[in-house]
């Protein structure tokens, strides 16, 4: 009843929501405790030592023991909160390995979402319940932030590089997606909804909504129409590196440094090829900056991700729809192992 008419927290609809609320309740109790201590001191002393009944003040210099006491006790409590909050944060930031992938492109003022197996949505995200979902997100203009209060997750969506978040819904239903980072005129209209469905319903929805093939096959078409395949043919002596099995693996650069070929690395290599040249190859690739949309980049990344290591052979598209999903290599959400910043 209380929660219905005077709610104090939103629905708990993800695996982490209950954990976040537990710490929140602890913090509220802590805050009430200290507020009561301070108010009690002020009220008691004000009554007991008001001028009318206590005309002469007793001059007291201070107390080292008390100073230590009220420094150390709050510090101890603060450290408990720190550790608790940090453990929770690490959990929130690291997606489980088997998470299902969804790609998100934010723009003023809408959310575009793509499922690896094909369906695209605008301002709606259909997901199955009890399944971890990892979002790979990018903005095509300003900074946005993907926020689902019922899941207690939020992650800024940046232009220029991928960020990640994940959640596992525990209750079917419809929940708000808010943009939480101010992004201009219609910021408050950049609202979508997550529709959490039973897995069976989700499969029905999936099969009904897919018109244009999966992400990786879309990427394969781009790979040849943009001419990538002429250099990245995968044959020995090709002018560009063989991309089979590259995803998620460390790459040796001409500078001697090593980076992990994650989503951000692949995206940057398409838009700014001169930045990290793989050892043994010349700086001959032209930039595709301005020619490929963020959605197409996501398709290209998905395609490269789908290529399995097959030495000496030309890369072939991963045809089966299942290849796109379930192959996340455990890149921690919100963290970029290959990031060079």
């Amino acid at each position, binding site marked *: 009843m209380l929660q219905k008419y005077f709610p104090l927290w*939103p629905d708990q609809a993800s695996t982490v929501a209950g954990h976040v609320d537990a*710490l*929140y309740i602890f*913090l509220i109790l*802590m*805050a009430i405790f*200290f*507020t009561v201590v*301070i*108010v009690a*001191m*002020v009220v008691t*002393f*004000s009554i007991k*030592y008001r*001028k009318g009944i*206590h005309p002469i*003040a*007793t*001059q*007291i*210099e*201070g*107390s080292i023991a*008390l*100073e230590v006491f*009220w420094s150390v006790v*709050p*510090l101890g409590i603060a450290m408990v909160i*720190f550790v*608790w*909050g*940090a453990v*929770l*944060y690490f*959990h*929130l930031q690291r997606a489980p390995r088997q998470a299902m992938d969804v790609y998100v492109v934010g723009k003023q003022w809408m959310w575009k979402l793509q499922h690896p197996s094909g369906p695209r949505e605008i301002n709606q995200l259909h997901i199955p319940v009890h399944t971890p979902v990892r979002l790979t997100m990018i903005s095509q*203009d*300003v*900074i946005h932030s993907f*926020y689902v*209060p*019922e899941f207690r997750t*939020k*992650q800024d969506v*940046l*232009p*220029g*590089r991928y960020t990640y978040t994940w959640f596992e819904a525990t209750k079917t239903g419809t929940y708000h997606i*808010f*943009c*939480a980072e*101010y*992004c*201009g005129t219609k*910021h*408050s209209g950049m609202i979508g909804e997550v529709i959490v469905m039973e897995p069976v319903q989700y499969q029905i929805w999936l099969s009904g909504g897919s018109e244009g093939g999966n992400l990786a096959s879309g990427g394969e078409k781009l790979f040849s129409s943009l001419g990538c395949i002429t250099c990245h043919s995968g044959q020995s002596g090709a002018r560009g590196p063989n991309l089979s099995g590259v995803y998620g693996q460390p790459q040796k650069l001409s500078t001697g440094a090593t980076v992990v070929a994650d989503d951000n690395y692949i995206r940057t290599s398409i838009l700014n090829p001169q930045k990290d040249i793989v050892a043994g190859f010349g700086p001959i690739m032209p930039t595709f900056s301005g020619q490929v949309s963020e959605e197409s980049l996501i398709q290209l990344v998905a395609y490269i991700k789908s290529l399995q290591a097959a030495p000496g052979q030309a890369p072939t598209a991963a045809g089966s729809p299942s290849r796109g999903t379930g192959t996340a290599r455990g890149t921690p959400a*919100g*963290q970029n192992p290959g*990031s060079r910043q």
Partner: protein
Amino acid sequence: MSTVTSHIIHKEAEVMPEVHYLNADHSLKSWLLTIDHKRIAILYMLTITVFFFVGGAMATLVRLELLTPAGDLLQSDSYNKAFTLHGVMMVFFFLVPSIPATLGNFLLPMMLGCKDLAFPRINLLSWYLFVIGGTFALYGMITGGLDTGWTFYTPFSTTYSNTNVITVGLGIFVAGFASILTGLNFIVTTHRMRAPGMTWMRMPLFVWSHYATSLIMILGTPVIAITMVLVVLERALHIGIFDPKLGGDPVLFQHMFWFYSHPAVYIMILPGMGVISEVIPAFSHKRIFGYKAVAFSSLAIAVFGFLVWAHHLFVAGISIYAALVFSFVSFLVAIPSAIKVFNWSATLYKGSIRFDTPMLYAFAFLGLFTIGGLTGLFLAALGIDVHVTDTYFVVAHFHYVMVGGMVVAYLCGIHFWWPKITGRIYPEFPARLAAILVFVGFNLTFFPQFILGYLGMPRRYHAYPEEFQVFNVLSSAGASVLAVAFLLPMIYLIWSLKYGKVAGPNPWQAYGLEWETSSPPPTHNFEHTPVVTTEAYSYGPKEGEVTLG
């Protein structure tokens, strides 16, 4: 006046000194070219009052719009400009200069027993820079407005916004120098101009807190100035610094912005803490509990305050290990504030407590700052911050500190030193009423916003889903009470300039050099340079330590 305050000892009626800093010269030129720190303080006071009410008017628009879920009163762009103008005016042109440039300017030399600040002309220059900066900002706001929020996040501000980013940015840049010059003046004055016998450990805590504030002003402000210049350069000349399309990094802006703007919140609260450290001993007629702890905690806040900026970036895509470090230091910076609150509360113990208006404000400060500080711990906790950052929880938290803390402390200080500044006492009844209304109105406005935030309502939303309406209506209702509470002092303080009871040098029987000279003080503050022989807050002989338990 029938509401004669009971504590004023009725010897013969006090008389105004014949010549004082206010009537020494009446010409406009004598005001506009004054190098008297007290007159400059008054110039600042008038200027920031204008900016406060401009910012307040914008807050009124925001709260009116949010009464209903639909965006019906203002258009989206107008709403965005309203909250931006509110934020820019309140932060850069009211809160940052509020106590330091007015009460600090007025009192710091008097508390140290000197005739003026170390560089009186630089002090005047700082006011002119402030006015020029403020005029720029206001001009930009009126002609086309600004819709970036006071935080100017890139690449929105540098590439996408169609509003006057450059004009307002330059205004903030210029006003920053006013802040730097004030800080410089305070530091040099504190080091070089103390009266004979005024050792560091005899300085009032108001001076300590202003010293700490000044350190932040001179170390932090240049960074915001540089950041603003970079925003202007990227916007005007398309030099790629922050926009990834030009090869920049948008998160770099957030690091640079918060490197100043987080320490800046301590610029906005430390001087308020200084006021509270004077008022509580005065109205308890008792020396402050733990002088050294309170003094050094100000310095600790100034130092640690520089090491926590990235706690604004926990969901901005920074490394999780960086987040860990910044979360840890954010918890550390809470401790010096806690020490202060405990010492202020302990000062009441065995005091002889009076409940005049400044003391009511001090009590309000204790309660509101405690809540503001404790909710800061919520935000420092990484796992909670992910959920509540960029929601109304953050809005509520920083208003508890900035308004519940700093504005309340400002009103506290204005009432406490009003007799010193003007020579007259404000009427006690309306003043107490206003203090109570501030406390009630404030809590009604901002407490519901904590709940709204945890329920998930993002900040800077022009329209919002219906389930958030109840708390928004409560908040807007509180804001109307708060508006009345802020207008009341305008009326009775102006009234008191003519009709207020003559105060005399020390109406509160407070201890401190500023109370030893006439009210209003002469232009040179003291007839003779004072010689200090006692510690601050020597309200009576010491009676040793209390022991724990």
